């Protein structure tokens, strides 16, 4: 027993350190001015990188665009996925297994391949370089995850509560808003979180479909990483992480506000 506990603690702490240490080194890097080779910590700290970036107009533009894209992608993904996941999770029909597989396709094929194919199509229909085009391509990559999550939630929920509501005389609208939606809300939050983060961290797809006309945080960040400007890249990364985090906390707060108490979030 004692040994088991010790091993458990060791694994837990290793995992915790593995998760937090990259973030710590990012913070240290972001604020370091001089960090010569043999030193364990920088010899001089500065807030210059941060100040410079925060004052640059491109950062504001990138953050706004990233948030807009992520938000639109989330909404589009949920709207697309909800009916499909419900059908796949609850009803049996011909081609159900095929639908499940099909929904996973975009992440089974390399992203660049999918995006190149879509790019050609988008140039033809005039969506290349537009916000809508980029939202569409982000949605393509968010759908597989959101679909899986919601499908399992529907499978667990089953049809019984909806049937009960109908027997009690509720119309389709009331069944949906008073029963189905609240019951799958935890899944919706998870799927929304996933879609948001996926869109927020897209690089290659934004780059190809956006054609450089849409500036997002990853597009600002990557050249600095490649150019070896680690301090700047670190600051961008921090901005990136905290923007995403803030947006997700806000999302949960809104859901918590609308869906009473804490049944869903702490069942």
């Amino acid at each position, binding site marked *: 027993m004692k040994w088991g506990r010790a091993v458990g603690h060791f694994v837990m702490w290793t995992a915790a350190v593995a998760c937090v240490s990259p973030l710590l080194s990012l913070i240290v890097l972001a604020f370091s001015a001089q960090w010569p080779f043999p030193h364990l910590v920088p010899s001089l700290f500065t807030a210059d990188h941060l100040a410079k970036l925060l004052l640059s107009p491109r950062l504001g533009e990138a953050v706004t665009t990233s948030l807009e894209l992520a938000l639109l992608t989330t909404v589009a993904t949920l709207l697309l996925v909800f009916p499909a996941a419900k059908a796949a999770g609850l009803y049996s029909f011909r081609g159900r297994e095929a639908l499940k597989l099909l929904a996973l396709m975009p992440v089974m094929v390399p992203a660049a391949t999918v995006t190149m194919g879509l790019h050609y199509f988008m140039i033809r229909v005039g969506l290349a370089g537009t916000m809508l085009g980029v939202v569409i391509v982000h949605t393509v990559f968010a759908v597989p995850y959101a679909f899986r999550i919601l499908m399992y939630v529907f499978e667990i929920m089953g049809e*019984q*509560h909806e*049937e*009960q*509501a*109908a*027997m*009690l*005389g*509720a*119309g389709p609208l*009331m069944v949906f808003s*008073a*029963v189905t939606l*609240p*019951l799958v809300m935890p899944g919706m939050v998870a799927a929304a979180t996933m879609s948001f983060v996926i869109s927020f961290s897209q690089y290659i797809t934004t780059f190809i479909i956006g054609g450089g006309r849409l500036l997002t945080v990853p597009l600002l960040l990557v050249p600095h990483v490649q150019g070896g400007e680690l301090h700047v890249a670190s600051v961008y990364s921090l901005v990136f992480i905290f923007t995403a985090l803030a947006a997700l906390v806000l999302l949960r707060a809104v859901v918590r506000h609308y*869906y*009473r*108490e804490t*049944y*869903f979030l702490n069942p």
Partner: protein
Amino acid sequence: MARITLVGVAKAFNDKQILDRLDLDIENGELLALLGPSGSGKTTLLKLIAGLDTPSAGRIKFDGSDVTLVSTRHRQAIIVFQDHCLFPHLTVKENIAFGLRARNEPRATIDRKVGEILEVVQLPGRQNSLPHALSGGEKQRIALARACVLKPRVLLLDEPFSNLDVNLRLSMREFVVSLQRVLKLTCVLVTHDKEEAFVMAERVAVLLDGRLEQVDTPENLYDRPKNKKVAEFLGEANFFPGVVADGVFTCALGSFATPWQDTRQAVGMVRYDNVQLGRHTGNTLGKIKDKVFAGRYTFYKVALAAGGELMASCKESFTLGDAVYVSCADHAMQVYSTP
């Protein structure tokens, strides 16, 4: 409340016949039990009545008017499921008010009706609890309240007590019967438990392999099962193959009067508690082979001297190896002709 009529109702899934042309009349205000083993199609029938599914053939009528194609929502037939199916995100009050809200009843009416029904199910003061804070019995009572508050045309109970422990189950049976009488509800109880069906229902419909084998009062069903299948399903029955000739059925247990005048192969059925064991008199001789004490009765396995075995339940005490005389009254022997 309504009179429910099923006319030739059948249901098949992928060529598999689940229900085979059922005809059934459920009187207004009656509590009918639908008794059958699992997989006999009981729940399917309940779903057809509630409109959660449509029959492959036949008609369902409420008070004579055809509701076969009326949507679930407008049918006013409510199932209370075994796992109660309360909405977990709504309070007790909101759960009970759900159907009233769907009917757009005014708030004051809703409050009054919810209060009244909570009194009836003896759970006042639980209005603002969430379902997960309730005990199993309380959940079941709230689920009943949620259905009853709407005064449904028929209340359908799908094994509602099988998740409850024994004592609670007994009190819930009484509770439901009194609720049904007070509210004068037409009620169909689905169960696989004979005792539950007998104790609660005015009539019991036995459903075996998708066919209604017998619809009768509990007394008739127990004493005079219509065929061997029903007798076997109800249990505690001995079967004796024999022959009918000149109005007399002869088997290992003796000779018994039957209404049949021709000659035919038949099988006789005697319930365990209709077998009489005596030390000095009786039809045929046997020997106590096994004994199980079960409280009210002791079950004996008797090896007949003429060959064969039978089971008897009685209060007298015998010991293993005792020689006993076995007999059975004429009226206690049910005879079925064998095909």
